[in-house]
Structure formats: C-alpha cells, structure tokens
C-alpha cells in the first residue's frame, strides 16, 4: 500500500516535506521543476547564467519557506510565482543598471542555446538561428506580455494557472497573451511566411 515518493503528486510531496521535513521529497520536487523553471526564466530574461542563479534561489526560497505554501493552491503555481517574482526583480535591476551604465552594447549580449542532440549541421544551424531570432523577438515584447505568453505558449499552463501565478484576472491574462502574440507576429512574420 505504501507508495514510493516518486509516485507522489507535487502536492503530496510538499506536504510530506512540510510535515516530516523529508529531504527526499524536496529533492524530487527540485528534480521535477528545475528544467521547466530554467526554461521559463531563460525565455523571460535571455541570460543562462542569471537564470540558473534565479532557479537556485527559487529552490532555496522553497526550502526556507516551505510552510508558506498552502495546500489549496497547486504547487506548480506557487513555485512559478516565486521564480517569476525573482525574474521580474532581476529585470528591474538590469533596467536600472542599463540606465546608469555608460557602455550599453546590446550587440555584446549573445543568446546561448544548448547543443542537446546531434543533428545535421545544416539543420542545426537553421534551428539555432530560428531559436535565436525567436528569443530576440521575445525579448523585444514588453515584460508584462512576455511573461504570460511564455507561460501559456512555451510552458503550456492553463489560463487559470497563469492568472494565479501573475495575480491577475483571467480576462487580463487572455488580453495580455493576445497582445504579446500580436507583437510577436509582427516581429516574426518573415520566419513563418518564408
């Protein structure tokens, strides 16, 4: 009858961690969410080093403030909220730094895309270029729209979950998603038309 921890749902695992301070439950949750959070933060900020730090900080916050999670909410929305807040703070800090910086060379910022699997060089280059263009286009979209578009179209979350993460109404989420998509469509029209 005893279920393995790996078979537990997210909510069961956090409860286990809260009640019994089971580090294994914490590790399973970290393992489940490290990649989706990394992808989300990376697409939002466009910087791999910073995104790894932010996801680490998210997990540290989760470890320290595990009791602030309430069982009526989904664990995924709670952890996405923490990561989103940290990512937004980072973006604000970067903006301030950009304003005060004398050397603001956007050209120096390179988008890094991981080489995950072997594909033919032609296809690889084509895929990499496409990915870079899309990422650059995403970074040109306003952060308020970018965030919800990433959560919806890249992370595949529901409108309700996004509304909970961003603390917005569902109507606002939908309108923001469509505005973000519209902007992206204008920026990427040469890719999907050609």
């Amino acid at each position, binding site marked *: 009858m005893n279920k393995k921890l790996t078979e537990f749902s997210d909510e069961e695992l956090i409860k286990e961690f809260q009640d019994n301070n089971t580090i294994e439950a914490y590790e399973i949750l970290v393992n489940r969410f490290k*990649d989706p959070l990394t992808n989300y933060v990376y697409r939002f900020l466009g910087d791999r080093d910073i995104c790894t730090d932010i996801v680490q900080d998210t997990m540290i916050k989760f470890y320290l403030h595990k009791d602030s999670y309430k069982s009526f909410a989904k664990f995924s929305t709670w952890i996405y909220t923490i990561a989103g807040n940290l990512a937004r703070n980072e973006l604000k800090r970067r903006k301030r730094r950009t304003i005060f910086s004398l050397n603001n060379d956007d050209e120096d910022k390179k988008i890094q895309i991981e080489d995950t699997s072997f594909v033919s060089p032609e296809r690889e280059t084509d895929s990499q270029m*496409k*990915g870079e263009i899309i990422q650059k286009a995403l970074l040109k979209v306003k952060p308020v729209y970018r965030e919800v578009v990433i959560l919806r*179209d890249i992370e595949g979350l529901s409108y309700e979950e996004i509304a909970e993460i961003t603390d917005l109404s569902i109507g606002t989420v939908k309108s923001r998603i469509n505005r973000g*998509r519209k902007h992206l469509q204008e920026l990427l029209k040469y890719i999907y038309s050609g």
Partner: protein
Amino acid sequence: MKNELYNSYDEEYKNVIKLLSELPRESAPPNFEYNLSVRIKNRNFDLNSSEKKSLFPWRYFVPATGAVIASVFVFLVLFNDSDSLENPFQIQPKLRSEIKSDLFSSKKILGSIGNNQQINENDVVLKEDTKQTDKSIIEKEENLASNIGPKSELKDEVKADFPFNDNNSTNLDEALSERRLNTKIDRRASLAGRNAPSSFFNGFYIREEVDKEYVEAQKAKLDSLKKAIKMSRIKDKIAQ
C-alpha cells in the same frame, strides 16, 4: 461567447503559437542539484540573484537625503530675496519730525500703561470733573515709574528732548532761542589726518526747524493740565 472569441484569437496566432511551442527546451545545468545541496548543507542561503542585499542600507538614506536637498533648494529659492535686504549705508536718515513722532508715540504708550487711556497728539486734556487729588496723581506716577523700571530712562530721554517738563513752567521762546544759540557753538571742525584749517561743520543730519504746531499743542496740553490741577485744588478747598 468570450471563450469563442479567445479561441478565434488562438486560430489567428497559430503560427506564433507553433513557433513558440517548437522552441528548444532549456534545462538546468548538470551540477544544479549538487550546487543546491552544497548551499543547503553549508546553510548558504544568501540569494545570488537580484535580492542580494548590500551591507550598507543605502535605500533608507535616500528619502532623508532627498528631503534635505529639497529643503535646501526651497530655502535658496524662496528666501534668497536679495532685493529685500537693505544696505545700511543706503538707508536714509530719519527726519527730525519722524523721530519726534516716534518719541511721542512711545510717550503715549507709557501714558496708556499708567492711565489705561490713549492720548492723541492734538488732544487737550481737561480734567475739570475729575475727583482725583494731587496725591493720587503723584502716587500713580511713582507707581508707573516703579513698574516701568528701565523704561523710565526712556521717559527721561523724552523729557530731555523738550525744553520743559510737567512740573515747572517754561518760557518756550527763551528755550528756543537758547537752543538756537547752542547750535551755533562747536560747529567748526577739522577733518582727521589733514592739516587743513577747521571748517564749518553742520552735522551729519539735515537740521530742521522746530515744528511750531507741535510746540503749540504741547503748550496747550501743559496749560490744560495746570488748569485742571488748579481747579481740583480749588474744589478740595471748597470741600474742606
């Protein structure tokens, strides 16, 4: 209805949605969990990202600094009215008549302290109906002098300015002629540091003739006071 609208939007942006969903997934570095466990074991809970706090709490000093700068700015803008400051070397000296009126007003204040009455410049005080005796008047004056204290000097000053006082009768013509004679004395002066002969010196201020109307008013006042005192004495004698 609203859902249908958003579904139609999904259809409109299907190319964008497809592009985004096909993006390669980013994953955490292989040493992610190891680094995290090390941090937790070492209890290194300082945040690496934006929430890292500086040791000095700059943000607490920002409002105070802003307030200080704003107040200094306001002070400089509002109170730096250089036109309102008078150059003491360019102040016109007061005219004799103004000084006299000032003295008269100060006398009025002194009088009002004693009698709780205001004396106008042109008023002639006739106290025919008064039941006060000389003694009471003298006592009042003494009390007034004791109450005023240092201000009595001012009273003396006021008295010294005029060639007569309340107790003695004065020949004003004589006093005025004496004054004229006195002003002619010591009018010769020589400039310091020069061997030039002494020259006629008429003082630093413009000299003015005594205001006849003012003298007349004072004269009338004195006469009325004397008359009042005389009348009160007569009344006292009759009463006795």
